[in-house]
């Protein structure tokens, strides 16, 4: 129960900080803040699928893209307002994810990973397909007008967009949290860990798995739609393989099976590439080619330090604080669980 109180405290602290942020930061920091929130929403969705339900997806950039392009098309070609376009686009994403979940039922972890990897690679090609040009703008992409701040509210555009992202993010976090702590969440975890036992207990694995796919796609879609209006531009290059890989990095660094970890993961994938870029400066002029290498090194170092992600480390630390003796037993238990999972057939 101390766990629950600590969790609540952390949630309140983070929420307060997030709310205060737009009034102390300005300009591009708000843009970065909005990006972090957007990524966190996408990561929450992916974590639902991969962390809680055990289905590895390396292709969530595709659903992010459907959300982004969907919102952009609805706004530019059909004149929908942004607060309507994003939900509509996310419903489309849900359907797409749900449909993708059907064939995904048939193949196991590794093959699903590779199939979604192929999806991520194919996404830019699908987006720039000439047949869709009249909607998607082809390879030139679509430029969006930034949403106007509603009259009477004395905020600038950056602050307003940040708060819009915050509202969506908080609402989706709250929804995911309820889901995870309720019956559905338990069913998802059961399907991940003991699929046969779960079926025997009456859990309709197929329905839960496809719905989970749909939900995670919906989250990615909302994130994509928000990204479209915050950046003001969508193009096939915005949604390539690096994006899907970044999502994977985000949930692992944040911690699989942890919704709160999504925020940490989002901070990581938003800021660490910048850090890698800055670090190249200290290597001299010719080393400007190296941000990729530094990023790779940082990835490995972070994984070495936090193999279960930030959330995993936080859990261990919290338990160590609560009761030093108990934590050792639990830690070796976690090791056993990890080994067991690894030894399972894909």
């Amino acid at each position, binding site marked *: 129960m101390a766990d629950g109180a600590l969790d609540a405290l952390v949630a309140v602290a983070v929420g307060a900080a997030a709310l205060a942020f737009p009034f102390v930061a*300005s*300009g*591009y920091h708000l*843009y970065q803040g909005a990006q972090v929130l957007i990524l966190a929403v996408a990561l929450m969705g992916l974590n639902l699928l991969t962390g809680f339900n055990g289905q590895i997806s390396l292709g969530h950039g595709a659903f992010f893209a459907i959300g982004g392009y969907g919102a952009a098309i609805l706004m530019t070609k059909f004149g929908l307002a942004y607060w309507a376009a994003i939900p509509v686009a996310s419903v489309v994403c849900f359907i797409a994810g749900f449909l993708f979940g059907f064939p995904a039922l048939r193949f196991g972890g590794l093959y699903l990973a590779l199939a979604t990897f192929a999806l991520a690679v194919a996404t830019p090609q699908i987006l720039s397909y000439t047949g869709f040009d009249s909607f998607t703008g082809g390879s030139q992409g679509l430029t969006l007008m930034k949403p106007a701040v509603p009259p009477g509210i004395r905020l600038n555009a950056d602050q307003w967009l940040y708060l819009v992202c915050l509202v969506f993010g908080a609402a989706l976090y709250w929804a995911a949290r309820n889901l995870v702590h309720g019956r559905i969440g338990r069913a998802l975890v059961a399907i991940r860990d003991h699929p046969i036992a779960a079926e025997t207990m009456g859990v309709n694995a197929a329905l839960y798995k496809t719905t989970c796919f749909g939900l995670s796609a919906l989250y990615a879609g909302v994130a994509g739609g928000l990204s479209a209006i915050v950046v003001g531009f969508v193009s096939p290059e915005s949604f390539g393989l690096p994006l899907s890989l970044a999502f994977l990095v985000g949930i692992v660094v944040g911690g699989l099976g942890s919704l709160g970890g999504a925020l940490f993961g989002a901070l990581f994938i938003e800021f660490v590439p910048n850090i890698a870029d800055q670090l190249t400066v200290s290597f001299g*002029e010719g080393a400007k080619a190296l941000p990729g290498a530094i990023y790779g090194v940082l990835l490995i170092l972070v994984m070495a330090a936090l193999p279960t992600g930030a959330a995993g480390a936080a859990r261990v630390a919290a338990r160590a604080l609560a009761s030093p003796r108990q934590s050792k037993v639990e830690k070796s238990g976690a090791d056993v669980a990890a080994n067991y999972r690894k030894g399972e057939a894909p």
Partner: protein
Amino acid sequence: MITRRSFLQSSAAAAAFAASAGSARADNAPGVTATEIKIGQTMPYSGPASAYGVIGRTDAAYFKMINDEGGVNGRKINLISLDDAYSPPKTVEQVRRLVEDEKVAFLFNTLGTPPNTAIRPYCNENKIPQLFVATGAAKWDDPKHFPWTMGYQPSYQTESRIYAKHILKTKPNAKIAVLYQNDDFGKDYLIGLKEGLGADKAGMIVKEASYETSEPTVDSQVVTLQGSGADVFLIVATPKFAAQAIRKSYDLGWNAVRYITNVSVSIATILKPAGLEKSKGLITGYYGKDPTDKRWADDAGLKEYTTFIEKYMTPKDLIDANAVYGFGAAATMIQVLKQCGNDLSRESIMKQAANLKDLELPMLLPGMKINTSPTNFSPIRQMQLATFNGANWELFGELLTD
């Protein structure tokens, strides 16, 4: 009650008022001091387009050279170049950081069509010069709608229009096959080709085949294109794929007249790997000197370039066409700054950028001049057709202007 919000707002308003009052008197741009001009840029130093990072390194090295010589009108150039991994959301972030945090005077040579498209509204709304963008899309020559954005190299559409006209002149009954990269670069060429041929002659294009940069080779596409029976082959491909296409078309025994985009004409890095014999007869629209072409061995401009590379870059950069590109773009930028004299407000910089008259650069073809005006935001509009004779590029015809 003075809340924090109202305080912030009023100080923001005061700052804005001061800034606007300042610009009415055309104060120098932010980032300009008595001793320094701060310039910003984003480049894909990581990610799939990282090959173009050389342009950024060349820009930086060139400015270092200028600084070593004393700077421009007593001011040193400080180029802040950030990595955007060719991702438009990241470009927006980095550009905003450059403008709002680093307070650069303006943006120079930012690379890529999607990245530049993403930041164009921001730059134009905030009246920040977005100069000499490193992309050949046609859209950067639009001073009416985007008065703060200016292109640099001859646009892809210009180039393929020139090829179209040449085909109409030399082979009016040709059957044309096109290999193109499936992105804005490749598709722009197609548009220009069709425009140059004209609506009635668009049927001359009998087959188009595209490829993704994630594919290992274009051999299969070339086979398909040959199968269409075309006798003119337009290769719109970046270096690696261009070399593959040149080699494959020769190996197949395909006797077509081959045109190749001028991003892929370097002898050392494309024609030699493809095979010098196999590259014979290629036609391109040339506008810059190839440092690996022996014909320029005694050229003063090439000597300048070589000295620069030896002193400020690494040996492998000498043959890199991207380094030649950066060398020219940076020189053009310096010319603009020189013309500004002591008036380094953003308006003045933009004005001078649109006021280049007959500027000649060491690595442009002899006789080529850079010109800009308030209605012409396309600095380099000339090219000359050249054909490869197995050893070097032979210019023919006259200097063409679009």
